[in-house]
């Protein structure tokens, strides 16, 4: 579904991602792991248009998407979340979620003045959908609170709610489990799995919590020094010597 072909991205002299090639299969929950500074988040940023790749190609469902702007990537039905959540703090939880649907009629200023009926009926539908989504992630009681006042874990759930609202084909999650307590984590894992199975959303996620990765992801891709180092099932990865070396520096061999 997503193919990254020999992508390179450098900052000054430092190649954060260099000649990185990998594939994410449709309908999978693919994990991306690797030591700090391996280039995982940079790769996400390149895929989602935040950075332009210096070299290489990114193909999504047979179409090249490298060099598109972030909102154009979104229109291709790819959504991403951030390592440190980026909610719209001074807006309510419900408004955060209602923002997501694409091409809303009321986003055109003329329509708000001259076609108020149409805007209102669509807004009603969006609101109902948003309430359903908030029900699903169990944030419904907090719908009228400022998003900025949620706890770290609740913000992760809000990100998930927003990604559901976007009706994406693929979601890139950057450390969905960081700062989430174990109970909430179980909920998060269950939700991701449910979305993958029921809504056929492909997930590609960076995670440092190995329990989460081993439990949820298949396959797992390992990155190190800007390149793909290994790929396989969780079991294979656990045993892979190169992976241990990359993480632990080789002295435990």
């Amino acid at each position, binding site marked *: 579904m997503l193919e990254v072909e020999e992508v390179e991205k450098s900052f000054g002299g430092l190649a954060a991602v260099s000649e990185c090639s990998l594939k994410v299969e449709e309908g999978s929950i693919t994990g991306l792991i690797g030591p700090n500074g391996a280039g995982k988040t940079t790769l996400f940023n390149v895929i*989602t248009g*935040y950075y332009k790749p210096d070299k290489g190609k990114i193909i999504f469902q047979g179409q090249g998407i490298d060099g598109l*702007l*972030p*909102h154009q*990537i*979104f*229109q291709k039905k790819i*959504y*991403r979340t*951030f390592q440190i959540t*980026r*909610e*719209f*703090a*001074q*807006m*309510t939880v*419900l*408004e955060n979620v*209602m*923002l*997501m649907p*694409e091409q*809303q*009629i*009321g*986003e*055109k*200023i003329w*329509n*708000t*003045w001259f076609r*108020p009926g149409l*805007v*209102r009926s669509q*807004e*009603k539908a*969006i*609101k109902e959908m948003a309430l359903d989504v908030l029900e699903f992630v169990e944030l419904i009681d907090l719908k*009228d609170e*400022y998003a900025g006042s949620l706890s770290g874990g609740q913000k992760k759930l809000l990100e998930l709610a*927003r990604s559901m609202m*976007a009706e994406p084909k693929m979601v890139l999650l950057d450390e969905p489990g960081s700062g989430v307590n174990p109970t909430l984590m179980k909920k998060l894992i269950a939700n991701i799995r449910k979305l993958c199975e029921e809504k056929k959303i492909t997930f590609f996620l960076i995670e440092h919590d190995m329990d989460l990765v081993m439990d949820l992801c298949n396959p797992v891709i390992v990155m190190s020094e800007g390149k793909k180092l290994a790929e396989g099932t969780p079991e294979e990865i656990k045993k892979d010597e190169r992976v241990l070396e990359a993480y632990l520096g080789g002295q435990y061999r």
Partner: protein
Amino acid sequence: MEIGGILAYMVSLAIMAGIYAIFCLGLNIQWGYTGLFNIGIAGFFCIGAYATAMITTPKPTGLYAHYVHQIFGLNLPFVMGLLGAALICGIVAFLIGIPTLRLGEDYLAISTIGIAETFRLIFNNEHWLANGPRGLMGLPQPFQGLVDPKHYNYIYLIIIVIIVVIVYLSIERAIRSPWGRVLRAIREDEVSAAMSGKDIFHFKMQSLVFGAMVMGIGGALYAHYTKAISPDVFTPLYGTFIIWVMLMAGGSGNNKGAVLGAYVIWFMWTGTTFMTNLLPYTLKARAPYIRFLLIMILLEIILIYRPRGLLGEEKKVSKLVD
């Protein structure tokens, strides 16, 4: 002062505050909802005023043309002046937006204040354009013949109130809709809004242009009120910073707050003239500066004790279907 005089004075205050309320509403679209740091309001004030002056007055002819230079004069009615001022300000904002909206917000601030000063100096120095520092005069006022000129201000106040209400309602409608929701998302986190599929540049442009058009209407209403304009009116202090003080005091992100702030601050600002009249003779020469000092102290008090202004942003803004 007899009672009629006091009333007439209050009416003139209410007119000026109403004009400032329109500027505040325009700034609120740009800053309050979108986070665009425009400190060049005076530029749109200036262009709006000159635009309507040239649209509603005839081009000078005969002997008069030797003394008054004016690049064009269309002699059209008041309403056309307002619409023309809005349109021209919108076009100017669009042109300014193309290079500056891609900049970070500090740079937008620097470039807008520079552009505003540039406009003022162009009108000041280019005599052929709009008569240089002597300015333009003889702007028509609508319904002028209807009452004794002594009482004309009452009619103008009604016109101002009607226009404030129209502007207020049209902004409210747009802000309560998904359009306003996108603007607020951009204000909160631009990157996240882009990743949520919103075309940041286009929405910022719409906000800048819409805000500037509202400011253009404000400038035009000012010009028809004073009937004569010259470039020295559009200084950063009267054209920009007092409007920021009004919006901060009233409540950025709240249109009711924007209008309230304009009235509160304008009444206080003019109130300070009475206070400085009480000053001892030796300090009187410094009265204008003491007034600035007082107004800035007031702003600081507001920011410390009511950082969100008198009326802050409402918690739920997108309430089209509540």
